[in-house]
């Protein structure tokens, strides 16, 4: 027999009555998962120190989120994966050789100051992990630019240090870079695999691209920001990057080195701090690419991805405001 249903038992709410299964925490954990291959390559080349540094960043991030929310009497959100992801990204953006206090302080700057003090998830203007890294770079410039030689031996005891490919390129030029790596093909291959000095999670281009392809396949990110970002860097470094005049630069080295792939696919695409409309995202990507190339070629730092993204983060609200999507049925004359 049919079950009788009393009136007060029915739930009443406004439409829509169904929701997609996507949640914020699922997004955050999936992005974290997509970073695993690159992180694993970092551990492979830089040893247990890579795990140690990243773990400290994650612990610092989660603790910072917890303490601020506790003090502010807000709902605790450490399980939504957002602070974990910030910690993971911050760790992957650090040299494996930094002393313990740098990850801890930087993650506090990232999560407590950049994210929570601006209102928590969704309200930060700047990418938290990048602010944390920028803070560390400015506060501890030596430690943050001392790079371990990739050893590919799991013990990683011989803490030899070396320069990054971008550093060599900036100081001594392309010839020296080819000389160190042997020949051009070896250089490209080693950059692709990640056998080079750098931040512990940025080196393996191939592992990063696997993660990025997964995110694009899952439609968590789209091509708009990364491709416009990379294309702009490639074009500018090709035209102006060479020492023998225009159009003699090597865009491939620029694309494969530094934090460009990590930045373009995983940091510039941060939902909160990039524009929401596709048109705006392309402008944002081009802006990031332009600033990156400008810093790499003309400024004091060999690498410019971090500052480029942070600077463009400031413009996201402005871009969104001025490049709205076209409203269906908008009259043509109104578009003037």
């Amino acid at each position: 027999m049919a079950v009788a249903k009393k009136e007060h038992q029915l739930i009443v709410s406004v439409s829509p009555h169904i929701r997609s299964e996507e949640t914020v925490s699922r997004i955050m954990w999936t992005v974290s998962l997509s970073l695993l291959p690159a992180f694993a390559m970092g551990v492979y080349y830089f040893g247990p120190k890579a795990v140690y540094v990243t773990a400290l960043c994650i612990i610092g991030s989660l603790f910072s989120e917890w303490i601020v929310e506790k003090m502010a009497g807000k709902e605790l959100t450490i399980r939504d994966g957002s602070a974990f992801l910030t910690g993971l990204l911050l760790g992957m953006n650090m040299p494996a050789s930094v002393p313990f206090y740098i990850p801890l302080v930087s993650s506090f700057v990232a999560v407590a100051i950049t994210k929570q003090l601006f209102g928590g998830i969704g309200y930060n203007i700047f990418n938290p992990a990048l602010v944390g890294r920028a803070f560390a770079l400015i506060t501890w410039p030596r430690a943050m630019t001392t790079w371990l030689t990739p050893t590919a031996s799991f013990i990683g005891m011989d803490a030899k240090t070396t320069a990054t490919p971008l550093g060599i390129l900036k100081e001594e030029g392309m010839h020296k870079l080819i000389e160190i790596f042997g020949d051009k093909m070896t250089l490209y291959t080693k950059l692709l695999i990640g056998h080079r000095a750098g931040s512990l999670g940025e080196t393996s281009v191939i592992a990063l691209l696997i993660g990025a392809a997964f995110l694009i396949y899952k439609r968590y990110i789209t091509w708009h920001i990364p491709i416009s970002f990379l294309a702009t860097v490639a074009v500018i470094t090709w035209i102006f990057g060479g020492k023998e005049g225009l159009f003699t630069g090597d865009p491939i080295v620029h694309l494969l080195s530094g934090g460009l792939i990590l930045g373009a696919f995983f940091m510039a695409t941060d939902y909160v701090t990039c524009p929401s409309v596709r048109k705006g995202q392309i402008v944002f990507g081009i802006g990031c690419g332009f600033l990156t190339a400008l810093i790499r070629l003309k400024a004091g730092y060999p690498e410019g991805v971090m500052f480029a993204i942070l600077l463009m983060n400031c413009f996201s609200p402005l871009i969104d405001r001025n490049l709205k999507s076209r409203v269906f049925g908008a009259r043509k004359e109104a578009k003037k």
Partner: protein
Amino acid sequence: MALLTFKGGVHPPDHKELSANSPIKEAKVPSQVVIPLSQHIGAPCQAIVEVGQEVKKGEMIGEPTGFVSAPVHASVSGKVVAMMDVPNAMGRMVPAVVIENDGKEEWTQLSDNPDYMNLSPDELREKIKNAGIVGMGGATFPTHVKLSPPKEKPIDVVIINGAECEPYLTADHRMMVETPKEVIEGLKIIMKILGVSKGYVGIENNKPDAIERMKEAAQNEPNIEVVALQVKYPQGAEKMLIKAIVDREVPAGGLPMDVGVVVQNVGTAYAIYEACRYGKPLIERVVTVTGLGVNSPGNFRARIGTPIQQLIDEAGGFTNGAVKVVLGGPMMGFAVYSTEIPVTKGTSGVLVLSESEYVSSEKFSSCIRCGRCVDACPMGLIPSMLSILSEKGFYEDTKEYNIFDCFECGTCTYVCPAKRPIVQLIRLAKSLVKR
């Protein structure tokens, strides 16, 4: 050929399998019907019967009080036993006539017209008006008004909306499978009234049997084309349907007639045919009773005024897990607190959601600006920004983000990973902003 569609939209699981293969069943005629006097957009009707009066099936019991209005008719023969206020789908109280069924099923005098295609457009329009026909997709706009466009708006295309893009609902689907000829005849009448030589039937591609049957029914009609549409919500929204089929964009704030198009729902076309051919007023409609909250989902032809509880019983009754009753589809339908609410002209479905299908909308977090709503909005709006402005109380600023172009399809709210009540916040802002 590539399937026609529009930009944006979402693909919620459609769950049409629950009732898509159940032929339309005649629902039991209730012993008492409750017929609201306001079942349409526009001026409510004035009752023209009194308590104690005998009425016949199809007799007018409420007469329109303005041009944008539609009469209501007795759906059974019997005695008027009460005039009372009953809640409608939106929970608002509306006056209604209660008729006790005498079981005789006696029709009032109907005017049979085998030769209806030779009637003049004005005569046909009059028949539709007198039959009390309104848009049966759920909007319930009086049909004769839609068929009386002003002279400065020439119409050249009529579209029958067979998209049925709301998940779960299968009423239009079954009508197209079971009575395709009648639907096509309805379309021909509309084309005649409007003096239009091009008619389309747009059907989402998840109903191949309906597409096939409608194509068969229209094969000798050179002016009528049955087209397959991509399965995507809200494909059945008028503006999206017109964009998909004839690639015209209804201007912001405008109506389909601004681009020379009139859209009518499948059920409406069927009712138009019945009114012009047999003189039958709109006293019954097809209702899908579905969801995991009922034991045996199906499609029923029910009299207007049938309490929805009776339809739920005919569909096997509530399951143990039933938690929510929605009139219409899950994207735009109205949850009701009582199952005594009667079926009206706009009731396309009774959806009973079970615990497993139910999603609480109580908890939500801040917008992470992921842009999913921006991509999905069929109108090209920025729902995330509208929801943030509304949440913070900056209602006036929402105008800058074209809030009045939103037709509240709920797509943004469906996709939001932060589970934000976006469309609800938009409705709030709309009601508080001066146009």
